[in-house]
């Protein structure tokens, strides 16, 4: 293989000398009504010449001498082939409208464009305009509800946070289960920089926040193993291919300017009771706190007596009438955030070369005071057909991202949301707005709750900063050796420099000395690959589109982490001003080499078979065990070409695919035992000491886990292509999943990683598109997609049947993997019950905590999206609704709300108690009256009471736009102007969770379905202006 490429390379260079003479042709592409078709693509068959039509449908391009065949295509139209004789230099093409799915060209593995009808697997697609209608800072989140089988759930951490995209269910207990992202053919980094867990933390973002939606032409989602098989060990969670916008040949210079302003308002759903104040029962009588220390230590306890307006102690030490002040604490503390983004793109080209250069800028001020995010993007795309045989394409992006005070979540000290959520209604949060004591440290409003930070102090102090500078570049050379054989070389790099600083400021109550941590790291991946391909007919009615290739992937990570404590000079936040604590060097380097092939064989125009194979060699595995083969086979049969279908049915296709891919490559250096000084102590009695490092046995036989998917699909169109449907069934099985297995300590170690886990996902995906009305002035189209995925953990390891993913901090609920249960099952405590299953009370009538039971799953198995697009003359209106069903969420906000007497439900029994009747553990009857305090607190111990159906239907996005008519612009420099208004998260049409949004999960790990003191979600209102010169 390698030798062939070497020879090929030589041939390639020797032939570069001769550059053929070209001829210029001009033409126009129009529709049936003789209106010019904008952005239609014209390619010379078998040659690297192409052009795109301008706003009037006109194009100019160079073509080789002699007779040529032009392929003319445009989205929404049937492609057409036009033969141009050697003396013809003008051409006029009429394209007929068609249902776009049928003749669409889609981007598949390695950026190879294929006709959609030839594919034996499902590929989801999203066009660039879908991304810009409602801009998301994190590109991953833009996929929400748009493509069947793509489940998006972002932690509630604001616009600069990460996304969580899971395609057709999670495949692995050990991996992150997120897809591989590939931009213009180059795999890019999507590492999470940090995540909130049981003890808190911040969502420090991921790699998908780097991209400017205005630069994206399309996204293509390879869902199953057959589609992603050419990505081998990286294909297990699907692949998302992102194509950036390119310049257009022969269009002259064009300038596009887009500006967007969006306002984000906090949408609090908290609805606490406002009748009883801060306090607790004293000798059985609900009593307000009259002692400041006690009040502060228990500031969240709303078990006092009923508000009566008499003077009473407040958290800030003042006396005020005893009444509710804090119904709008959340709104009063948070602010209206805004996002502001601009993109200026210059594009153009002549007959052989085109380019697009864009500058993007995004600034976001979060609803959380003090928190902001900024991003600058520069993108350059440059393509050139050097001669008739050689064309090059280059892409470069330089991105800087800067974030200040990313919010701390869940149980973190410095989580401003915690006190904001749990202040009793008797406190107006603005009373705490002087967050400082006399020394400039944190004011003491919360007494012994030192780990709960004053929200004003927390948001005014520097807490964290990060800066990421990123270069993503690629270069491709295509060489057509003959009109059927081509060679291609691609190199690409994703190079990231990242600096993160975390500060515990001077005077913060839980650590008054403060601390400073700094991490500086660089992370890079480069890929170099070569291909040799054949595209053409090999016999009558038999076509072949095939290539062989090789890829080298090199990853390097290097960083330094330093930490210091106790600022020597208070309030001066830099490393040199600390007592240094620890410095760590972080490093790893690894490589994967691959050989691969792909062959598409087509018979006539109705039967296609695609075969692929890829062998990966890994540097991080033991040499005796370092390669794996990943095959796939798929087929497409267009039966409507050979069977006479009823008149109303226009098109019918059946597809089937099977593929085998991998995931979670073991880390570098995990094969060998290492040695280190124990506890950082290097000697005893003057003698150096050295010990075995770690409690995990390196497993030499560890491999990436394996996923194989089998899928069947049915594509149909009806009523002259007005209605199109796509139905897919799949079964995806993970084997050899990597499990962190606890082993007998008598082995010398506590854990090892072994390939034993098995997980099954089965599901169905359905999409339908209807062009309900289509007249020259008015059109209405409807798109609906639905997906259901059932997951089941088949095996974890030989000796464990349950593995904890994470716990919640309060009330004892966790997310686990359990044999026989769905991936990410939520466990919580039931009531104590007797043998008959009846609830058992204690002798005082209180509830008792019983067994841990399975109460649901954190990831909704059913998800759907419905879009309605209307256009009337120059107006368009898009309405997008999405929904999820079948998932659950454990809400610690509600659990604590009941415990603290904040929930509305705890009003029951405040006066006179609650009469209970039942039996005790010995079966003796219990008939008594329990105080509301005892009743609701014992109720709150039963954590399963706070697991809710997280079903929702949301009016996710509405956008309304107006295109200024061409006639108005004729005398202006503008080619087009459009103005759009959009709104996001406008209305929750249906949900069942009190006090919080059903999408309030705090983690982007596999432990989905846990919520606690979350930031409010936002409603977003934006306006966008697009101008073309």
């Amino acid at each position: 293989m390698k030798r062939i490429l070497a020879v090929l390379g030589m041939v390639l260079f020797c032939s570069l000398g001769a550059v053929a003479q070209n001829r210029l042709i001009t033409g126009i592409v129009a529709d049936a009504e003789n209106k010019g078709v904008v952005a239609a693509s014209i390619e010379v068959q078998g040659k690297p010449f192409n052009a795109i039509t301008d706003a009037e449908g006109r194009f100019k391009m160079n073509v080789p001498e002699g007779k040529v065949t032009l392929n003319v295509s445009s989205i929404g139209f049937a492609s057409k082939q036009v033969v141009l004789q050697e003396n013809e230099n003008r051409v006029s093409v009429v394209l007929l409208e068609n249902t776009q799915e049928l003749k669409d060209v889609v981007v598949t593995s390695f950026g190879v464009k294929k006709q959609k009808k030839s594919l034996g697997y499902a590929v989801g697609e999203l066009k660039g305009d879908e991304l810009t209608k409602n801009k998301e800072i994190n590109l991953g989140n833009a996929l929400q509800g748009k493509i069947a089988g793509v489940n998006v759930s972002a932690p509630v951490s604001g616009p600069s946070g990460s996304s969580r995209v899971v395609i057709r269910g999670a495949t692995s207990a050990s991996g992150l289960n997120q897809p591989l992202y590939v931009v213009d053919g180059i795999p890019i980094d999507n590492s999470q920089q940090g995540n909130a867990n049981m003890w808190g933390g911040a969502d420090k973002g991921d790699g998908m926040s780097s991209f400017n939606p205005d630069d994206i032409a399309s996204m293509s989602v390879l869902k199953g193993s057959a589609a992603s098989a050419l990505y081998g060990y990286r294909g297990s969670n699907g692949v998302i291919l992102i194509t950036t916008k390119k310049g257009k040949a022969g269009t002259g210079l064009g300038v596009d300017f887009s500006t967007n302003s969006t306002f984000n308002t906090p949408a609090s759903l908290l609805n606490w009771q406002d009748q009883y104040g801060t306090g607790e029962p004293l000798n059985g009588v609900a009593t307000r706190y009259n002692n400041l220390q006690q009040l502060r230590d228990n500031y969240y306890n709303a078990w006092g007596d009923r508000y009566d307006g008499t003077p009473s102690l407040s958290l800030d030490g003042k006396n005020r009438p005893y009444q509710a002040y804090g119904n709008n604490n959340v709104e009063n503390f948070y602010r209206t955030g805004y996002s502001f983004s601009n993109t200026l793109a210059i594009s153009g080209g002549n007959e052989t070369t085109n380019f697009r250069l864009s500058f993007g800028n995004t600034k976001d001020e979060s609803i959380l005071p003090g928190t902001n995010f900024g991003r600058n993007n520069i993108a350059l795309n440059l393509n050139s057909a050097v001669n008739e045989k050689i064309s090059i394409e280059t892409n470069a992006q330089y991105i800087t991202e800067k974030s200040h005070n990313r919010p701390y979540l869940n149980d973190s000290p410095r989580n401003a949301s915690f006190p904001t959520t749990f202040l009793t209604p008797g406190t107006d949060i603005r009373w705490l707005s002087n967050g400082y004591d006399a020394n400039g440290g944190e004011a003491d409003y919360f007494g012994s709750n030192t780990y709960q930070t004053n929200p004003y102090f927390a948001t005014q102090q520097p807490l964290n900063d990060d800066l990421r500078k990123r270069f993503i570049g690629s270069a491709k050379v295509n060489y057509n050796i003959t009109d059927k054989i081509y060679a291609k070389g691609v190199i690409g790099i994703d190079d990231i420099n990242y600096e993160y600083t975390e500060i515990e400021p001077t005077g913060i109550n839980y650590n008054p000395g403060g601390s400073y941590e700094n991490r500086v790291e660089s992370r890079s991946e480069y890929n170099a690959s070569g291909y040799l391909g054949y595209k053409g007919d090999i016999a009558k009615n038999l076509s072949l589109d095939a290539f062989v290739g090789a890829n080298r992937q090199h990853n390097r990570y290097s960083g330094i982490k330093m930490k210091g404590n106790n600022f020597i000079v208070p309030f001066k936040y830099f490393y040199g001003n600390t007592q240094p604590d620890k410095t760590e060097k972080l490093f790893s380097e690894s490589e994967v080499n691959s050989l691969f092939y792909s062959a598409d064989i087509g018979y006539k125009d109705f039967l296609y078979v695609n075969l692929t194979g890829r062998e990966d060699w890994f540097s991080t595995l033991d040499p005796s065990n370092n390669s794996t083969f990943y095959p796939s086979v798929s087929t497409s049969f267009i039966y409507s070409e050979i069977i006479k279908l009823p008149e109303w049915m226009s098109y019918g296709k059946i597809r089937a695919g099977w593929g085998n891919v991998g995931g979670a490559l073991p880390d570098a250096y995990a094969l060998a035992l290492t040695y280190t000084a124990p506890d950082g102590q290097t000697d005893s009695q003057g003698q150096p000491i050295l010990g075995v490092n770690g409690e995990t046995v390196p497993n030499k036989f560890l491999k990436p886990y394996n996923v194989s998917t089998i899928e069947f699909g049915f594509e149909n169109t009806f009523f002259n292509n007005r209605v199109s449907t796509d139905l897919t069934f799949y079964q995806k099985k993970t084997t050899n999943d990597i499990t962190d297995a606890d082993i007998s300590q008598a082995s010398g170690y506590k854990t090892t990683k072994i390939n034993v886990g098995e997980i099954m996902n089965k599901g169905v995906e359905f999409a339908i598109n209807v062009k309900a009305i289509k007249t020259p002035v008015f059109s209405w189209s409807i798109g609906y997609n639905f997906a259901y995925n059932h997951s089941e953990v088949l095996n974890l390891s030989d000796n464990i049947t349950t593995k904890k993913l994470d716990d919640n901090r309060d009330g004892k609920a966790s997310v686990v993997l359990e044999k026989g249960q769905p991936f990410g099952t939520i466990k919580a405590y039931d009531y104590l019950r007797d043998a008959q299953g009846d609830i058992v009370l204690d002798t005082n009538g209180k509830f008792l905590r019983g067994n841990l039971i399975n109460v649901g799953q954190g990831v909704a198995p059913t998800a759907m999206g419905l879009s309605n697009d209307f256009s009337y003359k120059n107006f368009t209106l898009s309405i997008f609704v999405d929904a999820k069903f079948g998932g659950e969420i454990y809400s610690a906000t509600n659990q604590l709300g009941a415990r603290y007497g904040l929930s509305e439900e705890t009003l029951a029994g405040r006066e006179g108690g609650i009469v209970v009747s039942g039996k005790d553990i010995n079966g003796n009857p219990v008939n008594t009256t329990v105080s509301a305090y005892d009743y609701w607190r014992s109720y709150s111990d039963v954590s399963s009471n706070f697991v809710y159906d997280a079903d929702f239907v949301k009016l996710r996005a509405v956008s309304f736009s107006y295109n200024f008519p061409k006639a108005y612009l004729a005398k202006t420099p503008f080619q087009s102007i459009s103005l759009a208004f959009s709104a996001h998260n406008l209305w929750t049409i249906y949900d069942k969770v009190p006090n919080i949004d059903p999408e309030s999960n705090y983690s982007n790990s596999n432990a989905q379905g846990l919520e606690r003191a979350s930031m409010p979600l936002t409603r977003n209102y934006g306006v966008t202006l697009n101008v073309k010169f």
Partner: protein
Amino acid sequence: MKNKFIKIFCITIVGAMTLTSCDKGFEEMNKNPNALTDPAVKSMFTLAEIYVDGQDYSNTRGNNGYAGQIVQHFASLGGPGSKYTYVAEYSGSLFGESYGKGLNQIFQLMSVVKDAPENSNMVQALRIMKVLMFQKLTDTYGEVPYFEAGKGYNGNVFTPKYDTQEAIYNDLLKELDEAGDALDAGKGFVGAADLYYQSDVSQWKKLANSLMLRVAMRLSKVNPAKAQQYVEKAVAKGVFTSNDDSLVLQHDAGPAGVRTNPITSSWVRNDLNGGEANIKFSKTFIDLLKNNNDPRLRIYAKLEASGDNNPANQQGLANDAKEFPGGDKKLFSDPNTSTVLRLDAPTLLMSYAEVQFILAEAAVKGWNVGGTAQKYYEDGVKGAMQELTIFGDKVPAVSTAEYNTYIAAHAFKSAGTEAEKIEQIITQKWIVLLFNGFEAFSEYRRTGFPVLVPVNDPIGETKGTIPRRLIYDQSELITNAANYKEAVSRQGLDVMTTRIWWDK
């Protein structure tokens, strides 16, 4: 220009793909440049010696929390060893820590050095250290994984089988015998990296034989003939002959961690608290020393709050106490922080005195150990008193005159019954074994001495009887269930009252 660029570009691509095979250089790349993958064996040996003493976890929880309180060296109000309650992390602490730290270090080092002839003496020393650790383990729990243990990395045995205690003891004796013989003064050792004996091979031989005494004597109840055979064999091969031979591990003054005294570090840091410690000397221990006018008491004990080490003012806490009599914790004795409870206080892993008491017992039994019980007893008591100089000179050492007074008052009961003699010997040994609760616990179970009054507290798990073992680490139920169940089915229920093989 453009063509030239393309040529260079293509050469780069094709070159990159063709120059190497598909996994060339991978092995080299996967060597961690920021970690040691080849160990410095001498430094590993030094750490292994430290680990043999146990670390903070097993000493705080297993030794002080259970064994030292069961044998009534120490006492606390709610301590599991005082009231015979079950606290999983305390009971299992010796199990996980022994395998995870000391034994793993020993096994891994052995796997690295075993084939190199120049390391022969190191290998023998490691075998001896392994015996020291395994005997403590099996004495504490009964059956434990032995032959398949420590093979997680070298052999990928993740669920090692438990072995019968008899099989383990047979091998311990064999190992000591072979290792002692194979030690060769003519071969190199590790120089100053040997913290025990600074690479004096003859000392190591004496250690192997002295340890053989300890191992063999433990079989006196279950297999007296074998006990006698190996005790006599050990004596013939040569055991400790003076305090200079004792196995003493020196510690550093800080910072607290692997190199400081493992008992002291957490006791002083967390528990001592200016005399407010929860663990105090037991009334049993203090009263015995006080009643005997034992000159060691001033070295062992003081009232931390006042710094008073006057023996007359020392007071122990009764093991059955539910609260501090008088209500003031500070009036109860703590280990002396000037001597035995310093961060750099040495650990007496095996003493000359202990050897003398084993020999005295053997002589009482009429075995051929080349001396009289009385002589061994007196040498033992004298050695035990003089040995305390290892704890420094902050408190005056025991003088010869004081010894003479003591031995005159507590002369060997030559005319007594065998049981009386053994009680006298083992009671002295019990004092020497202060801070080595595990060994004292084993000897109590073997001999029944010293006579202890059991605590009968309703929260206890033993119905008022002194425990006969500790409960296995509970992780074994999950990670090694089949082998655990097999061991329990052979040995008896996994409870504190089950007697292990040599205790039947």
